[in-house]
Structures are given as structure tokens and as C-alpha cells.
């Protein structure tokens, strides 16, 4: 790391670059270690210029390389990235150079690696032939998956050249891949488009794609609201019931439409429970038996994750007696509210104290999975099979199962459904009173 420190201090000192000074620098850098060597010196130098915002130093270094005819793919790529990073200070001359470099590369190489294509896109998006970047993006996708910065760059270029539709289309494509754009894109959108609808368009984009709002983004929105509507705006807190602390209006509740729910239900079982090998989480006979059980059980109001509830008392710290009492109390809680209860458990639960278990078996439909099957997917599917509106109780956040749903829209539906239908057990006290965590926005 001594090498990097030396190089950084050289670059930030912004000395006049001369060949003699450079060869001296190289000698002393190479003496300090082997990580930076003759082969990668040029690219590392330009990269450090980018990191330290030293545009002129980078440019004159690049010019020197060009004069000596020592350019390689990495140094060109890094230079293009430098130009992109400091795009606001690019002169017309620089832009001409960028265009020339990009043209050269695409003509010279019929095919390139993703990294270099990314650099070309970033570079060319700054210039007036930014539309070329769409073609290069196509080529880049053939050899790999380009980073999200590239999509942001194209969208930004589209916005600043007032081709709004293309910009939003690119952003949609990016979010389809579960990636998020840079905040600079939103900034560009808001400063090129000054009409009333600009902010609304941005907000609806954020809400349709479930984008998590960062502090930076919220500041941006507040600033622009004040500027565009010339009325005051501030950041507020929303209570867990969805009511704003400032204006006491409430947020629209999270909802899943019946159509969305059908889509979720149909596409859940295959990836999550069955996967590549049925035996990993269950076995073929068991799934058939479960489906039969669900049809017989009919519609229920609540599905309980038996072991998860029982083990809320701690697996090692307490006995089956406590475990079964725990579960019984929760079943009682729902039965007392006239709800039809279904319990998913494992076969070894039959050995638990008879008194408590008999109550559970009598007052609910119980399905006991194999001891080595995983019960969470069964639970989720049971709640879905029963229909929209059936709640389920588990302290598990179900992240690993959510991950197995690959389509981003279905995963979103799952998230919303889970948010509205999952109860998290908080604790059960000694007289059997059950407390759940407060559910937000229902």
C-alpha cells in the first residue's frame, strides 16, 4: 500500500507532468513493492486521478501515453471512466477525443470484454453521439451483464438530451434485473424537466418499483418539491399504522389484488418447495399427502408454524411440556376468536405431553411433516392455498424462501402479501395471554 500512497501524493501535488519526473516516480514506486508494476502502472495512475478528482493530471498523463504510443485497453478504459466521473468539467475538445477513442476501439475489436464495453458506454454517454451507447449496450449484454452504473449513465444522457421515454425505459429494464439506478439520474431528471409532473413521475416510479428511499434521495425530493411547487416541505415520520406525524393523513395500505394473489399461489410451490430435487426439503409422497390434507381442511383463517411457536420459549432452555403449552396457548387464542386454525408441525411432536397435544389436535387441523422435512414452505403454501386473507404465524422472516422466487414482480407480491398476512409472536405469559408484534400499515 506504500506504492499507492506514494502515487496518490504525487497526483494530488499536481506537479507539472514531465517524462523525467514520471520515470523517476516509476522507479521509486517499483522499488516499494510488486503490486503496481510496469504492466499496470498506467491504468492505476488514471484510476487514482479519478479517485482524487484530478482531471487535468489524468488528461495530461493520457496525452503523454498517446504521444508515446503506449496506450492499452485498460488505460483507455480508465480514461473514459475518468471523463465520465468528471463529466461536468469535460470540454468540447475532450468530448471529441472520447468519441475518437470509442470509435477506434469498436472498429479495431470485433468483440471486447464487458469491462471495456462498460467504459465505452460511460465515455460515449457524455458526448453528443450518446445514442450509440444503446448499440454498445446490446453488444455488452452478449458477453456478460454490465453494471448498473452503465444503465444509469445512458438514462442520464437520455434525460439531458430530452429523450425522456428512452430514459425511463432503460431504468425499467435495470429494475427488472433487481438493480437500482444511481441517484444522479434522478437529479438529472429533475433539473432538465421543470414542469409540474416531473416530481410526480419520479415518485410513481419509486413506488411502482418499491425502491427504498435513502436519506440522500429524500433530501433531493424535498428540495425539488420546495423549488417546483414553491411551497414548504419537510421530512416526517410515519407511525406503524401508516399515519403521518405532520399532516395526520394516512398512507394507502399495502394490498394484494386477487389476480396478483393467484399469480403468486401458482408460481410458489415449484421453486420454493420442490426446487431441483424434491428430497432436499420433502419427499414426493409427502407433498401429495399435504395437498390432500389441504383440500380436506378447506378454508382456514390462520395457519400456525407449530415448531416455530413452540420453540419461541427456546429449544434447549425448556422442555416439551413448555413447548406444547406455548403452542396450545396460541391455538386457544385464535379459537377464542372463532377462527379456524391449521397447525403445521413435525412428526416428533406426537411424543409431546398428551394433554396439551390432544387439545391442539382436537381444535385445529394438524399436518405433521417428516422430521427431516422443512416445514416453512409447507406453512407458506398452506396459507396461500387457503385463500387470500388467511394469516400465518411464525417468527421466521422467510428470507431464504423469498430468495428462491426468481421473478422480481412475484417476489414483490410475496413481500406485500407477507407484510399483510404474517403475525410475529412476541410472547406468551404464564396465564396464557398471547402478544403479537404490531403489524405495520394494515
Amino acid at each position, binding site marked *: 500500500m506504500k506504492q499507492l500512497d506514494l502515487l496518490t501524493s504525487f497526483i494530488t501535488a499536481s506537479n507539472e507532468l514531465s517524462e523525467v519526473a514520471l520515470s523517476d516516480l516509476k522507479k521509486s514506486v517499483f522499488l516499494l513493492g510488486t*503490486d*503496481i508494476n510496469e*504492466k*499496470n502502472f*498506467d*491504468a*492505476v495512475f488514471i*484510476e487514482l486521478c479519478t479517485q482524487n478528482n484530478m482531471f487535468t493530471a489524468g488528461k495530461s498523463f493520457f496525452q503523454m501515453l498517446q504521444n508515446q504510443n503506449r496506450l*492499452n*485497453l*485498460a*488505460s483507455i*478504459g*480508465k480514461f473514459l471512466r475518468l471523463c465520465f466521473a468528471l463529466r461536468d468539467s469535460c470540454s468540447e475538445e475532450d468530448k471529441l477525443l472520447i468519441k475518437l477513442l470509442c470509435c477506434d476501439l469498436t472498429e479495431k*475489436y470485433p*468483440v*471486447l*470484454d*464487458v*469491462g*471495456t464495453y462498460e467504459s465505452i458506454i460511460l465515455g460515449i454517454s457524455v458526448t453528443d453521439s450518446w445514442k450509440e451507447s444503446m448499440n454498445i449496450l446490446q453488444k455488452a449484454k452478449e*458477453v*456478460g*451483464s454490465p453494471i448498473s452504473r452503465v444503465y444509469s449513465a445512458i438514462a442520464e444522457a437520455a434525460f439531458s438530451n430530452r429523450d425522456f421515454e428512452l430514459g425511463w425505459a432503460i431504468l425499467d429494464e435495470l429494475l427488472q434485473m433487481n438493480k437500482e439506478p444511481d441517484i444522479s439520474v434522478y437529479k438529472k431528471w429533475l433539473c432538465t424537466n421543470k414542469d409540474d409532473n416531473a416530481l410526480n413521475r419520479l415518485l410513481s416510479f419509486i413506488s411502482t418499483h418499491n425502491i427504498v428511499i435513502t436519506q440522500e434521495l429524500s433530501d433531493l425530493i424535498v428540495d425539488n418539491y420546495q423549488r417546483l411547487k414553491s411551497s414548504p416541505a419537510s421530512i416526517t415520520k410515519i407511525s406503524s399504522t401508516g399515519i403521518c406525524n405532520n399532516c395526520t393523513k394516512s398512507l394507502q395500505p399495502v394490498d394484494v389484488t386477487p389476480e396478483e394473489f393467484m399469480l403468486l399461489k401458482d408460481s410458489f410451490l415449484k421453486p420454493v418447495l420442490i426446487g431441483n*430435487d424434491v*428430497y*432436499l426439503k420433502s*419427499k414426493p409422497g409427502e407433498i401429495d399427502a399435504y395437498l390432500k390434507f389441504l383440500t380436506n381442511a378447506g378454508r382456514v383463517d390462520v395457519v400456525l408454524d407449530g415448531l416455530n411457536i413452540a420453540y419461541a*420459549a427456546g429449544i434447549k*432452555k*425448556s422442555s416439551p411440556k*413448555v413447548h406444547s403449552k*406455548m403452542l396450545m396457548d396460541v391455538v386457544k387464542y385464535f379459537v377464542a376468536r372463532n377462527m379456524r386454525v391449521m397447525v403445521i408441525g413435525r412428526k*416428533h411432536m406426537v411424543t409431546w405431553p398428551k394433554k396439551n397435544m390432544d387439545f391442539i389436535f382436537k381444535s385445529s387441523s394438524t399436518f405433521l411433516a417428516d*422430521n*427431516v422435512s422443512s416445514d416453512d414452505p409447507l406453512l407458506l403454501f398452506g396459507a396461500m392455498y387457503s385463500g387470500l386473507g388467511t394469516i400465518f404465524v411464525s417468527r421466521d422472516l422467510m428470507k431464504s424462501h423469498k430468495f428462491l422466487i426468481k421473478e422480481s414482480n412475484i417476489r414483490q407480491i410475496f413481500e406485500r402479501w407477507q407484510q399483510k398476512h404474517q403475525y410475529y409472536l412476541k*410472547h*406468551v*405469559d*404464564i396465564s396464557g395471554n398471547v402478544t403479537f408484534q404490531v403489524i405495520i400499515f394494515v
Partner: protein
Amino acid sequence: MKKLKVIALEVEVLRQEGHRVPSSMAADRWRDLLMLETKSQRMRLLAFWWTNEKKREADKRKKQERKKKREEELAMIKEGETDDGHIKYGFGGSTIFIRVYDSKIDAMHNSKLVRAMQFGQDLVVDCSYTSHMTIKEASNCAKQMMMMFAENRIHDDPFNMHFCSAVRDDNVMSRLFKFIPTMYDASFPMNITPKSHLDLFPKERLVYLTPHCREELRTYSHHDVYIIGAMVDKANNEPLSLAKAKSQGLRMAKLPLDRYLAWGMGSKSLTLNQVLAILLDMKSNGGDWEAALRKNVPQRKVVTKEQAEREISARIRQERRRQQRLYY
């Protein structure tokens, strides 16, 4: 071919950009890179090779330094000696003992394996998990299998190990072959077969050892054939061996790790050679799990007796406090 070209270009650019890329790339490395999907995966693999290369360079340098130092020491000793015309007795001089060469010891170990092949207890290593492992995992797995074989060979009463479902050219077996170049020789005492364990042994005798099941292996049986899955699963934690045993309808068991040991830091996963060493000890020490586990589970993972006692008294205090609270 196009993909190879793109990857070659990518590697070159990465090297020029100062990323961690090894200086030499043999043909099989390109093959490994071709099998990876994304750029980040390739970068990780390149970085792994780079680190190994650096380690090897450092080792080489240290070795040379040691050699130089040793030579200097020898020269010093030689200078101090006087030639009195007698032969010198001791190491490096003359002795009454015959020198036992490594090859002789090898032959002795191998003869034990041959004996085990005739009379010893059978043990299966199931090599059918290669497709589930990354390249790094596969190479770790091959190394552990090599150590497993070595561990078995030097034991007084070794198992008759069968490497079942082995595909000669796959990622694990080709690497194991690099470690043991004579392993396919007819005279070498190692059973490698593409057949499944179901074809070799009756189902009733087979017991699959898998950490994902609930049953513990309480008593060691000298008549059962235990199956160890040759798998290193660092990234993926799917219960593959459990699924396999379930689908083949075999008995399964896990080692009683929690029953006999207090676990401290680190994971409860053991390497293949550690599992084998535990079984070897169980076979010969009359079924003492605690001794077998204490000896073979790495020290750092186990809590010492004093630590355990301290923890237990803390637990008791905590329990008392908990009982005083109202809810459970």
C-alpha cells in the same frame, strides 16, 4: 471459442488495471474460467490463484533463505572439525542401523491396506457431489480426500475404503489424481469405482452419515458400512446428502457432536479427514465417542473444561433470573 477470446481479453485488461491476476495461466485454468458464468466469479477465482501464487513465491524465498543459513552453519561446523583419521559415528556419518527409506515405509502402509481389503471393515466415500461444488470447493474436497486416504493408511487398523460413483475426469477426481498419480494402477491398494454404493453392498448394511438428519450415531457398529459424502459445502447449505439418503431409502445418522463436546467458536462442520479419523478411532478404541471426538475435532472449536464450567454456572444464574420473571 468466442467466449474464450472474450475471457482472455478480460483477463488481460484486469491485469493491466492492476487487479489480482496470476502471472501464469495453464490450460486447465482457462478451462475453469470458461465454466464460470459471471465476471465477478472469474475475478474471485483469479484472485484466489493470485494469492496462492504469492504464497508459493514467499515459501520458495523462505526455503532458499533457510537453505543458505543451513549451508553456512554446516560450513562453520566443518571448519571447526579436525581430521583425525577415524570414521565419524552418528547421523550424517556411519551407524549400525540400516537406513529405512520412505519407499519402505510406504510399502508397509500399503500392506496394511491390502490386509484391510481382505479382512477389514468396509467404508464408502460417495463421490457423486462434484456437480454441486464450485471449483475451489472441488479442489479443497480433493485435498481432503487425499488426506483421508493418508490418514486411513497410517492407522494400525485401517478401513477398506471404497471411492464410489467416481467419474474419472470430473473436477474432484482429476484433482485427486494430481495428488495421487498412482491411484489408478492395478497394484495400488485403493478402490475407485464408478459404481454406486447400492451396487456394492446390501441396503441393510449401509448407513449414510449426514449432519442434517436428527438421529445420532450412538453406538458404533462393526458390521455396518458407513457412507461419507465427499463434499465441501461452503457456499451452498442444501441438505444434499440427506436428500440422497432419503431418496435411496438408507439409514442415516449424524455424529453425536453436541452430546459429547461443548462447542466454542467456529462452525460445527468437520473436514472429510477429520470425520474419517473419528471413525477410525471409534473402531479401535472400543466405542469411546468422547475420546475419539476430543482427539480429532480441532482444539480451537472446542471449549475447555474450565470454560465450560464457568459457562454452566452463568447459565444457572441466568435460569434463576428467568424463572423469577413471569413469562416463559
